């Protein structure tokens, strides 16, 4: 079979990985009502260690499907994906477990990773402090606001200590003010932890605001249409002129991609 999932690290673990995720000629099709439907077509993409990449595309470009493949929740139909360990994944829904407190949610991630019981509590408090939620340890999920929930979810994802953080439109359901603050927060945490991030969104400004590299996917099937390297220095703001200018350019390209679908 063409699909393999291997660790990027060398066996002795000393050799630093050349990439956090390597996606090679990956295709994915699902059985649909009209036979096999090709969702992703020959995607090749590398995420370098410490790099922040956003995957941008309209509906039906298969960006969430691609993220699921990288997360190992699904298998590609063809091609290979290798990652540096098991990636952490954040969803649009916070996906926190409501039967556990904020702190215990993080501790569960630590426990499943094999962290000894004695260290979990301190580690969880530390992670909560990193997302600036000191004192929220005992809070139940329903007692937290939307922004706080996503920050706990971020802390839980960070608890996996994976080199790669996958984010599937994690801020799409938040209000604009909270989203803006979480952009700043994510940028800060990314720079502090030196994680690699693969971030899926359909929001062009968000993509430009956050990423070092923006990858535009075409729709049905998803292909890499174009990539931009974003040279604007961090920290940025979503309303920065440079962010706006690049967003205009990318939006034009995205609209062009979408228009092609109305022409037949």
């Amino acid at each position, binding site marked *: 079979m063409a699909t393999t999932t291997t660790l990027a690290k060398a066996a002795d673990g000393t050799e630093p990985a050349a990439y956090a995720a390597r996606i090679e000629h990956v295709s994915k099709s699902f059985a649909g009502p009209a036979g096999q439907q090709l969702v992703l077509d020959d995607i090749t993409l590398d995420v370098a260690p410490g790099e922040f990449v956003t995957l941008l595309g309209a509906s039906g470009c298969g960006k969430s499907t691609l993220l699921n493949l990288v997360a190992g929740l699904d298998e590609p139909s063809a091609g290979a994906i290798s990652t540096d360990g098991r990636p952490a994944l954040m969803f649009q829904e916070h996906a926190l477990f409501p039967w556990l407190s904020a702190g215990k949610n993080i501790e*569960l991630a630590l426990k499943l990773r094999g962290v000894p019981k004695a260290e979990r509590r301190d580690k969880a408090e530390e992670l909560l402090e990193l997302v600036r939620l000191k004192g929220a340890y005992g809070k139940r999920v329903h007692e937290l606001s939307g922004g706080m929930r996503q920050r706990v979810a971020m802390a839980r994802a960070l608890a996996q200590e994976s080199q790669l953080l996958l984010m599937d439109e994690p801020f799409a359901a938040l209000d604009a003010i909270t989203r803006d*603050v979480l952009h700043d927060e994510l940028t800060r945490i990314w720079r502090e932890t030196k994680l690699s991030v693969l971030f899926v969104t359909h929001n062009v400004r968000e993509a430009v605001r956050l990423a070092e590299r923006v990858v535009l996917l075409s729709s049905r099937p998803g292909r890499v249409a174009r990539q931009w390297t974003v040279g604007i220095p961090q920290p940025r703001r979503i309303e920065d002129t440079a962010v706006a200018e690049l967003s205009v350019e990318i939006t034009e390209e995205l609209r062009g991609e979408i228009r092609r679908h109305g022409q037949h």
Partner: protein
Amino acid sequence: MASTDTKRPAGDAGARDGGDLAGLEAGLDALESVQQGRKPLRQTFVEKILPPTVAVLLVLAVWQALVSFRIVDDPTKLPAPSDVWDVVRQAWLQGDLLGYIWTSVSRGLLGFCFALLIGTPLGLLVARVKFVRAAIGPILSGLQSLPSVAWVPPAVIWLGLNNSMMYAVILLGAVPSIANGLVSGVDQVSPIFLRAGRTLGATGLKGTWHIVLPAALPGYVAGLKQGWAFSWRSLMAAEIIASFPDLGVGLGQLLENGRNASDMAMVFEAILLILVVGIAIDLLIFSPLERWVLRSRGLLVRS
């Protein structure tokens, strides 16, 4: 162009990344968090305790009126509330009342515990193993609609007139409810929890223990509640049909004794005790358990 004039200086960037953001975030958190407190006792009394009390008093008043105004003047058909009260008091003074109740409650709770031990793994098997679900899932749901009194005759023939026969009837009544509650609880687990669990490394048995079971708890507790109701009903059916002096007098036997003696006050006494005990166990054990599970997850809607 105006937009270039308003562009902030580069030095500003570092400051925003530090304390400024923390303050902004703390403000947002404070604005968006909902403060929830428990209701004051007085309000609980007015909203939760007063209405049912009024309803019960109303029923008693109508009952007394039927007797006092001689609308029904045959005490063998309808005894006065005071007559029923006298019978209850008599039983209390003779020291029999707690005996009746304990005989039935101990049977009921013990039977329920057995049902719990059998129903839980059974429900888990049906929920998680496709073949088992296809094989016995429909039978299990079907059994729920079979009145458990139907099991009394075969249980008497198989096991004889003894306590095991009572427990058998309770099990046949309660196990399907408990198992089905767990199955529907598992079915309703949001797929997002399973996906989140898998990315955290909770697969297989770990996934069942850390994700599926706790997520299914609300459905399971609802099943337990119904399981208790079914246990109690099954037990009463068994006690009424299979009354035998050696078995000791439970509430079901008390009812049957009243019927045999044509003592309507005693029949009413037994019916009221069965009702009160059934409700009391639910109020003391199962409702608080259910409310605790729902409240801790923010699923209890406050009116």
